[in-house]
């Protein structure tokens, strides 16, 4: 096994460059990057910026697959640059492009605003019939493990946009809400604390809503967090069809335990340690 820290291979990074103030169309520039074992694409881009071309632009923050800002198209597949090791996907050449299905702000920086706007209109937060309850929760809401599991996977989304870039439907129909916002809708619809399913139906059921999904499954294939948006969308379709046929479950929010801390502790949950100060 190659020693960590030592370059094991030269990889040619073919990076899409574009400055809308200067360039008419995007073009590709190639850079030779000495790659060590374990080096991520993000590390490679840093090498280019530090040693070869300081004008290269991309977006990143956490470097650990949490913030969702470094999504890009790596060898034709949407992925997080910080989460992808170069030697796992490239032998000699690596193409790096901005995420498709979004306008380019500059070089590898996509404009994700359209995704955030679509996310906002599905109201991705817990809605309560009693608005006062939404603002000032007066108690804990009991949720069983099964109830938690029904949405937990969908709550891992980091809004990176990789699924939106992979979706063939979104590629042709920009009005389609897309996998991320629709999976977020299902995440909250399935949450037993939520009473907003019928309000969200107005958006998810629209012509640009979930019925547009062809279940190609590309969104789930590329999701770096294992969210499986395609599954969320099929569950959302099912619940919309059941609502249309008047067979859907009535929203019955989970039981409220009066006052924080007054619930019965489950046996496998440790007690809060005593205050030391």
């Amino acid at each position, binding site marked *: 096994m190659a020693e960590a820290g030592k370059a094991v291979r030269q990889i040619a990074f073919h990076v899409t460059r574009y400055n809308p103030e200067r360039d008419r169309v995007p073009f590709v520039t190639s850079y030779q990057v000495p790659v060590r074992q374990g080096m991520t694409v993000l590390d490679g881009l840093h090498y280019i910026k530090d040693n070869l071309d300081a004008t290269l632009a991309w977006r990143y923050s956490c470097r650990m697959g949490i913030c969702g800002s470094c999504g890009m198209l790596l060898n034709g597949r949407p992925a997080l640059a910080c989460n992808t090791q170069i030697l796992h996907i490239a032998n000699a050449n690596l193409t790096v492009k901005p995420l498709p299905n979004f306008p380019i702000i500059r070089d590898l920086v996509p404009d994700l605003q359209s995704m955030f706007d679509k996310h906002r209109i599905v109201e991705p937060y817990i809605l309560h019939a009693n608005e006062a309850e939404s603002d000032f929760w007066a108690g804990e809401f009991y949720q069983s493990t099964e109830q938690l599991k029904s949405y937990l996977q969908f709550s891992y989304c980091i809004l990176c946009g990789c699924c939106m870039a992979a979706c063939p439907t979104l590629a*042709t129909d920009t009005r*389609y809400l897309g996998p991320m916002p629709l999976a977020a809708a299902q995440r909250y619809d399935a949450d037993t604390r939520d009473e907003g399913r019928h309000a969200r139906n107005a958006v998810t*059921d629209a012509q640009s*809503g*979930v*019925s*547009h999904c062809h279940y190609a499954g590309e969104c789930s294939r590329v999701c770096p967090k294992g969210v499986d948006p395609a599954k969320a969308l099929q569950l959302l*379709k099912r619940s919309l069809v059941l609502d*249309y046929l008047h067979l859907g479950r009535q929203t019955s929010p989970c039981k409220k335990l009066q006052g924080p801390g007054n619930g019965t502790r489950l046996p496998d949950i440790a007690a809060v340690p005593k205050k030391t100060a």
Partner: protein
Amino acid sequence: MGGTRSWTWHMAAAVVLLFVLGMHMLIMHMAGTGHWFAPYGTEPSSMRNSLFRDENPFFIFAYILLLGVALYHGLYGFRTIVFELTLKPATEKAITIALAVIGLGLFGLGTWAALVAHRIALAGAGG
């Protein structure tokens, strides 16, 4: 219930389509398995066998059902594909109206033809 309503019917039409197409395959292309609803000779599409089926109101209902679900499923599917081109709302409305007119026209024509075939078959059976 905008998209969901049409999509639910689209899926329901697909299920019915599977059933009636299965019947079609069985009668017309799998005669060897038992000459279903084709008692005269070996050719299920011969005039005598066709008239035999046309006499039966169940088959007239099945023809009209097949026509209806095939038209709805096909035209709605076509509309979905075309709408993915992000057209102007006015263009989409015009396409929807045109497809509805074409669909209803073809459905009316096919229904009339099936009913006429039924009448001819009954007249033939009556001598």
